[in-house]
């Protein structure tokens, strides 16, 4: 009789404990799911490739296919990959920029709310300018401004086909 009572009307503390453990199990299961789906998505979305220097990674999201193709036809195809021009050459700046662009590019492409045709952001344009200078400073140092932050001509204003051939 007493046992039957316990079964049908459990004490509040017990029911809470039971709810607790139920929630814990649910969370554990869901954490497992999120880890599994997350790991799969990471693999399926070639997440590891974003840590590399491989230029094909940039065409992962298809939008960059045209830019990739035009780079392959450009004068720089043998000497510089995407990251060489579009990321800072300093290791910290490189990874910060990579994370920043990686996140916002993925967001833009997923939500499909970006400008067409794609335009480079001012910050990334500065990155590219410094990348040009990093390699070519020996031949252009006479054209550089006297002060470190002074205004300078943008290399790609004239050499717009250096990295991406026009045809």
């Amino acid at each position, binding site marked *: 009789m007493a046992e039957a009572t316990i079964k049908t009307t459990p004490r509040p503390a017990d029911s809470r404990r039971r709810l607790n453990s139920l*929630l814990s199990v649910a969370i554990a299961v869901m954490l497992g799911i999120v880890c599994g789906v997350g790991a799969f998505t990471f693999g399926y979305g070639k997440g590891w490739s974003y840590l590399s220097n491989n230029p094909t990674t940039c065409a992962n999201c298809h939008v960059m296919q045209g830019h990739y193709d035009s780079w392959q036809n450009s004068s720089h195809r043998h000497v510089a990959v995407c990251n060489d021009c579009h990321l800072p050459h300093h290791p910290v700046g490189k990874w910060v920029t990579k994370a920043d662009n990686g996140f916002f590019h993925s967001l833009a492409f997923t939500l499909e709310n970006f400008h067409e045709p794609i335009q480079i952001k001012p910050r990334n344009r500065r990155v590219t300018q410094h990348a040009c200078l990093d390699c070519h400073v020996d031949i252009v140092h006479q054209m550089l401004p006297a002060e470190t932050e002074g205004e300078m001509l943008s290399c790609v204003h004239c050499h717009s086909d250096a990295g991406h051939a026009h045809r």
Partner: protein
Amino acid sequence: MADTTSDPSQTARSPWRPRLLLLAALLAVVALVTFGVTALLVTIFEHRQEARTPFVRLVEVNEVSTDPVPWGTNWPNQFDGYRRTVDTVETEYGGSSAMPASKLEANPWLRRLYAGYAFSIDYREARGHAYMLFDQEVTERVTKRTQSGACLHCHASVIPTYRRLGIEAAGEKPDVAALTAGFNWPAVLEGFRVASTMDYASAHAELLKTPDGTPGENLPLFPGGETGQAHPVSCIDCHDPKTMQVRVTRPGFVLGIAALAASEAAVPHLASVNRWREGDRKQPYDPNVHASRQEMRSFVCGQCHVEYYCAAKETLFFPWNNGLKVEQIEQTYDEHKFPDGTPFYDFAHGETGAPTYKAQHPEFELWSQGIHARSGVSCADCHMPYERHGAMKVSSHWVRSPLLNINNACQTCHNVPEVELREKVETIQGRTVSLIGRAAAAMTEMLDAIRQAQAAGATPEQLAPIFELQKKSMWRLDFVSSENSMGFHADQESARILGESIDYSRQAEVAATRLRAPEAPHVDQPTEPVHGVTPTEKAPASPSSS
């Protein structure tokens, strides 16, 4: 037992409630993350699928499928754009999308330019591809004058009709199996010759007799026109129904470009022609075999947006034997003879009787002289720019003026603000308009002078060289004013052509006026030698005198 059942709610509440809440919140967060990750996974998957640009061939299309609707079932993105060619939005100078206002009323000099020719009856701004057949059926040029069946070479989806006529001419049975067996160039060429010499009404009737791939379905896709089995330019005219590859189908173009390739004319913008010229030349140049895909993106447009002869005296032809420039085409016409041996001309001018040439719409030829052609930019790059549909890249089939779509049409290459680009185009077009105005004024004054000379009794021998000048001047003015870019396709070339037109008009005017002017007196007035501003006595001694 009774104690514990009543008591613990008080004792256990304080430590248990927050933990419960925390767990619930955590559950919600994890659920949200799972939701997001799954959504991301699905978008990645969808974009991957889009990037493969898959299509499902739900409906079979073949070499008679001139009706675009079944194609639209298979390729809905392209079809949606194609259907939008019904939209009519005007640019500053008409362009491809204007409402059909009469050009004759806006520019009264055109009536004098085309005097004696059907274009002086009815000549309007062009509309989108959707209207090409309907507008031709209703123009007074066709309804009031007998026109040639050759007109349908470009205004209708006509190739299966050519093939059918060709098969019939060979004495075979043109059933659907024979019509869909393949492209059958020999039959198409033969049918093209047959239809070119028909009158417009007969050729149009032949068009209606050819199956269009949707038997029993006669609903028009576009408002107005397009009756039954006849369609304006459609998918099959530029695409192979088996592979979707871009192709040219118009016999006029295929023969014309082969003649151009065989000529000596410089065509630096057509790399495949230059490669063919360096080869063994055993086969004639065939755009469907030799041209690059990028060249084909212009050639498909060059099938119709060109200069040609298309009246009934002989089979339609593109006058490219000597090259694509205005004077090279003129040379081809000058050297050409009709099949009966008489010299070639388009019409005898109604006011003076001079034999003259009529320019059609030499967009391909003028583009060929411009900076865009030289830089490898095709017609489709600006008039059918790439659009993104998710991860898919689709060439817009809403063929229209780039000015209506500057973002996709121009800014892919020109990284300057839209306003600036529009101003650049309008500067070029405004200059062309003003030069056309001057050329038109010179042309009408030339006509007045020639008519006055005729009234004064000038002989045919005296008028012959003046008629030659009149022909040259009118051909050049017409070449630029009939072309549909208002000079933009090649601005310097347009200005050069109009400059020549003005010069020829004034030469003719002067020559005609001289015919009835008194003999010029002998001129013996000496010409003044050069004088310096320094007085002679102060000038330094010249080296020769010292």
